[in-house]
């Protein structure tokens, strides 16, 4: 008897068939991954199970009993819990308060905080978390917050746990810890459903994979009988080349050089004595655990933050340390920002307007201070076509596009302006496999034109497959650099965690 059995589930939204006759089941004590591109219907299917959507057709049975789930509250009562991608936590409340809210222990008329704290403490110890329930959630790291979300579900006696893209926001180390937790919960007999589009995670942690595409079940397979490549093909519906090494064959002269870059935050060095260079026709990857100075490096190299010391040259042209971001853009430095929602796009503006952000002052788009609407519109349509952005037209808000298409708007905006160097930060974060492949392809094309890319990514596989050379950052210092293929995975792991001698001051 399966813990959950969903049979023939169909769900229509006005104009779209989100789910079409989907079957899904999970056993007790199993980790089952739900794989699919953005928009394939994974989240919709799980929202049906969690009572947030009502299916138009199909049956759901929990532990062999047919049920109708009309709301999350009913789902919780049936033992189904969900950890949302965007955490449902209140930062100013304590861990204990967040966990028990909605099912609080009472002492007469009053909320029994002591009992809440002791219950949470016990629960955390059971699954091996070390937390102080009195701490406020705002003091916690993202990984810790996710544990609180899991505890929240466990507190309600959940036996079936749905995790929506749980690793999207985690550092590699936190991902490892999460997987350890999930395996532990599995040992205790819990059924865990993992919504994801990351293939290597599936291969690592799940017992079974169900692949969805365009709202249909493509199949259920065992990871041990398949490969990441095969899963990618199932997910996209055609041959996908994953992580193909593609080294530059035509490396030229130095194009971009950073010398003695120092940046202080208070009296602490965020970046210290960074020296690096980019040659024509190469991609330089910055490897490192997140929070080791990558963000600051990007900000300095795009003019968003003033360094304390730096000598920056692009070609023969030296950029002053006081230059603003516009001067960096004019000098031919393109910037694909780390967080596209925050710095890359204005989500409530049209694709058209987003296509010229940062380049809106160039003569082509402007006449006597007035935007040339037709020219910009035509330009936007051109970008949509060349960069394969899936959008009805250029007037719709960028925020309505999928992550992959939003990223393509940024990629198009930058690459179409023909910069010399591109600072590409997390260019494929939160983007589906098809779009990743496309973006990587574009980056390599750009490189082969004799341009250069500085690639900053939390995804080590991405760094390894794209970069010709690698620089490793640890605590704001360059601890090693060299040709990519000279580093083994173990080397990288050790260097990224400060394994070798580093001469940084503390």
């Amino acid at each position, binding site marked *: 008897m399966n813990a959950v059995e969903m049979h023939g589930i169909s769900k229509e939204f006005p104009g779209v068939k989100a789910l079409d006759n989907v079957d899904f089941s999970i056993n007790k004590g199993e980790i089952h991954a739900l794989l699919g591109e953005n928009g394939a219907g994974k989240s919709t299917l799980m929202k049906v199970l969690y009572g947030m959507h009502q299916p138009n057709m199909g049956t759901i049975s929990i532990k062999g009993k047919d049920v109708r789930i009309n709301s*999350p509250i009913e789902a*919780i009562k049936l033992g189904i819990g969900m950890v*949302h991608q965007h955490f*449902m936590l209140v930062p*100013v*409340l304590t861990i204990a308060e967040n966990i028990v*809210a*909605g*099912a609080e222990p009472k002492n007469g008329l009053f909320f029994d905080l002591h009992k809440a704290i002791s219950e949470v403490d016990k629960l955390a110890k059971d699954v091996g978390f070390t937390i102080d329930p009195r701490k406020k959630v705002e003091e916690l790291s993202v990984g810790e917050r996710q544990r609180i979300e899991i505890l929240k579900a466990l507190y309600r006696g959940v036996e079936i746990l749905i995790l929506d893209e749980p690793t999207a926001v985690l550092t590699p180390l936190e991902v490892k810890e999460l997987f350890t937790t999930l395996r532990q919960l599995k040992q205790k007999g819990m059924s865990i459903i993992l919504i994801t589009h990351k293939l290597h995670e599936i291969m690592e942690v799940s017992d079974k994979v169900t692949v969805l595409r365009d709202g249909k079940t493509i199949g259920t397979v065992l990871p041990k009988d398949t490969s990441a490549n095969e899963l990618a093909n199932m997910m996209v519906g055609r041959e996908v080349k994953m992580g193909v090494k593609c080294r530059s064959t035509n490396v030229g002269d130095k194009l971009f050089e950073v010398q003695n870059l120092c940046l202080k935050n208070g009296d602490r060095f965020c970046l210290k004595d960074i020296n690096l260079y980019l040659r024509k026709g190469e991609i330089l990857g910055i490897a490192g655990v997140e929070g080791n100075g990558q963000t600051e490096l990007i900000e300095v190299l795009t003019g968003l933050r003033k360094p304390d010391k730096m000598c920056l040259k692009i070609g023969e042209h030296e950029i002053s340390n006081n230059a603003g971001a516009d001067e960096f853009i004019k000098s031919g430095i393109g910037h694909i920002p780390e967080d596209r929602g925050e710095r890359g796009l204005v989500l409530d503006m049209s694709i058209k307007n987003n296509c010229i952000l940062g380049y809106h002052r160039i003569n082509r788009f402007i006449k006597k201070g007035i935007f040339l609407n037709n020219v910009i519109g035509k330009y936007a349509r051109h970008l949509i076509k060349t960069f394969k952005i899936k959008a009805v037209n250029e007037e719709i808000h960028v925020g309505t596009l999928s992550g992959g298409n939003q990223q393509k708007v940024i990629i198009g905006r930058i690459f179409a302006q023909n910069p010399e160097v591109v600072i590409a930060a997390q260019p494929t974060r939160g983007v589906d496999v098809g779009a990743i492949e496309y973006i990587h392809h574009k980056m390599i094309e750009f490189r082969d034109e004799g341009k250069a890319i500085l690639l900053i990514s939390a995804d080590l596989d991405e760094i390894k497959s794209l970069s010709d050379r690698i620089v490793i950052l640890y605590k704001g210092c360059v601890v090693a650099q060299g040709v990519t293929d000279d580093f083994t995975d173990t080397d990288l792991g050790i260097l990224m965690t400060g394994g070798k001698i580093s001469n940084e001051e503390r």
Partner: protein
Amino acid sequence: MGSLLDKIDIILISTIRMSVPITLAAVAGVFSARAGIMALGLEGMMLAGAFCAALGSYIAGNVLIGLLAGIIGGVIISLFHGILTIRYKVDHVISGIGLNLLASGITTVLLQTIWGNRGNSPEVNSISPIHIPILGEISPLVCVMILVVILSWIVIFKTTFGLRLRMVGEHPKAASTVGINVNRVKYISVIITGILAGLSGAYLSIDHVNLFVREMTAGRGYIAVVVNILGRYNPVGALGGGLLFGFADSIQLVLSGDNIPGQLIQMIPYIVTLLVLMFAVRYIRPPAGLGKNVED
């Protein structure tokens, strides 16, 4: 020497008296703010409360009925605000300001139609003070205010309803995913806001004086909004802020005899408001969901 002590005595008593309406309204605001609803309509609720209290007392000749009528008046306006913001997701500022204008207009019109006077109502029965040792003659509503502050603090910080209330104000989606009925919590808090703001208005018309005067709230509802923030959305803080503004109000009484132009003296509470807005409020973090309408 004696006159100085007298003055201190006057200031003390009148600080407490003046702080009652502002504190009550600010505590009213706390309940709304903690549920994520911006209570910009406090002025209107108070005005409606003041008018209805006078009317109730006038018709029934009984202050308790007046008080009850005042509370109902406040609740009517606050429920309007609640329905507009919760059900129809109207912008909280627009709804609040709109209701303030509505209350001002309606009370003026009703003044004219009921009593045939644009400026004020006839005198009505008012609440008689009670004798308390040391403080002397004082309004029973002062005791009610202190009780309200203590009870509100307990409700917000020590009960399960309070926890749910704070959760709704901070992150309504999080609250609804753990099975909290967000709209119910919001409506309850809006009604509490109306009760307290109506009470505050009633104090103005049938306790502080014994008649309703057009626009008699004189911006106290807006000051209460500021006091609410200054008090960090905490009832006890609201009492502190209320006393501060009560003090600013009462200095007027003492200073007005001296050679300072009256207009300057009357500006004091509003100047205090400006100073608070400029310097103190910046460092206070409001509930994260304040004033936001969430799509369900």
